[in-house]
């Protein structure tokens, strides 16, 4: 018989059944606890032994964390709602189709059946040097292995890099930024609500983490306001294979158009920086403009201003420029 390999080093497993119990556990265990929702980001770290933990707090039995409910014309989506549930939920599809589309393009069917919306926005960087356990900046060291003359950095950042050139790999993150979502974060005895774009942390602010979550904190829900319900949405993800692969670049936008003119727009791009990048200069520049090819091209050029490329990721500049232009022209005109 094959040897029984110990897939992961031993940890103590806690399976609380309520948010209150989970918060008590997280408070008690502090930085020693690893929160696990679907586990699809967590398992790689633990199996590869690149990160270890003594205790896992698994959220699968906390029913109240996976509820989708309507709030003031918007939606509150529990953090452990699976990506499949998000992609198939009738109200998400009808009013916030942007998020349904983004969630439906993540990874593979089995991963979407298990991976959660909270886990998808909280997942760690996918830089393989870091994932392989190299002692880089993000891991607390003092070098970036992806930014050397011989590095393989085709997937890495073109914007806002600061020593670390890893990107935010999430498909749902730009959609949530475009929808002006906010994230509900609870700890024992407290709660804070953070706008989606403020949830993500770039290397300039803290190079060792991707989000503002502190030990002891639990992401409990994602709130989407009514503001952009039913707007014209555009999501596009470019990847190597149509399954499993992370975005090379993705774009998410919400547009309000009247009489051929853009009234207002929110747009965010993923996989070009360590956080999803909201393009506020583009939003300002297109407001009030006719929705034409010229406006779209102007927006594309503006979007990539300041981009800095590495040896192998130069293609991301025209890719991002064109995706932003397509987001403005809309699905009907996207291929022309």
């Amino acid at each position, binding site marked *: 018989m094959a040897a*029984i390999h110990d897939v992961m080093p031993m940890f103590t497993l806690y399976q609380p059944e309520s948010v209150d119990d989970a918060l008590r556990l997280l408070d008690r265990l502090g930085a020693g606890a690893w929160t696990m929702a679907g586990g699809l980001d967590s398992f790689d770290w633990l199996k590869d032994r690149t990160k270890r933990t003594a205790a896992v707090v698994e959220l699968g039995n906390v029913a109240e964390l996976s509820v989708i409910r309507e709030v003031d014309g918007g939606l509150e989506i529990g953090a452990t709602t699976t990506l499949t549930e998000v992609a198939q939920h009738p109200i998400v599809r009808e009013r916030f189709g942007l998020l349904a589309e983004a969630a439906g393009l993540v990874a593979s069917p089995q991963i979407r*059946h298990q991976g959660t919306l909270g886990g998808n926005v909280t997942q760690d960087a996918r830089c393989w040097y870091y994932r392989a356990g190299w002692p880089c900046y993000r891991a607390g060291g003092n070098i970036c292995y992806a930014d050397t003359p011989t590095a393989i950095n085709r997937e890495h950042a073109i914007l806002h890099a600061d020593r670390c050139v890893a990107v935010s790999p999430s498909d749902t993150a730009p959609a949530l930024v475009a929808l002006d979502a906010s994230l509900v974060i609870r700890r024992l005895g407290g709660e804070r609500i953070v706008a989606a774009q403020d949830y993500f942390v770039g290397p300039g602010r803290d190079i060792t983490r991707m989000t503002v979550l502190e030990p002891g904190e639990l992401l409990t829900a994602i709130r989407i306001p009514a503001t952009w319900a039913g707007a014209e949405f555009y999501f596009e993800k470019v990847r190597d294979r149509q*399954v499993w692969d992370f975005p090379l670049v993705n774009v998410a936008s919400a547009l309000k158009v009247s009489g051929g003119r853009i009234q207002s727009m929110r747009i965010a791009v993923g996989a070009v920086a360590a956080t999803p990048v909201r393009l506020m200069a583009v939003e300002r520049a297109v407001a009030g403009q006719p929705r034409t090819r010229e406006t779209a091209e102007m927006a594309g050029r503006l979007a990539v201003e300041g981009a800095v490329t590495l040896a192998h990721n130069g293609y991301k500049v025209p890719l991002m420029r064109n995706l932003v232009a397509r987001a403005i022209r809309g699905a009907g005109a996207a291929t022309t």
Partner: protein
Amino acid sequence: MTDVVRPGGVSRRTFIKGVVAAGAVATSAGYLLRTTLIGQGGVPAGAVERLITLNVNGRDRRVDVMPQETLAMTLRYKLGLTGTKIGCDRAECGACTVLLDDVPRYSCSVLTHMARKKRITTIEGLAAADGTLHPVQQGVVEEQGFQCAFCMPGFVMAAVGFLKTHPNPTRDELAHGVSGNLCRCQDYDKILTALARGAELMRRG
């Protein structure tokens, strides 16, 4: 590994399964005792016990499961259900696909303790009690869809799960439904034909 038949007609696999099960029973008292001690030591309540019941292919199975153990490991090495394959062990190939409450999941990337309250279905649980194959299995036999067939149990489970919610898919929809499964022999076209035949047999009842 082939099953070696031992004197008395017990195959090697069955023999080992028996030993594993006996081991679990002999040590269970120790775990119960330890749980009590942990409780007294002031560690927060809610830490899992190791001796648990899993519902696998319609039967309740008592099994000793470590907290960090994946479902694929438990199925293969504790319960002897070796039809579930482990390819990548990283959620990247689909060979380990089983159904949890009828939904296809990568068992290499599920903690066994996460599956405690769910119905687990593996490739061994598809055929009827009298040996009649599941329509999707029958489709595979009729169309000879696979080459080495290492990926086959995962594909069949993914297809069976998908067809529960999409009983009448187009070929493209079916391809999308089983897109979380890889075949190293690159036999996709024939695999799809076999699975589509299975879907047709299912609809006929």
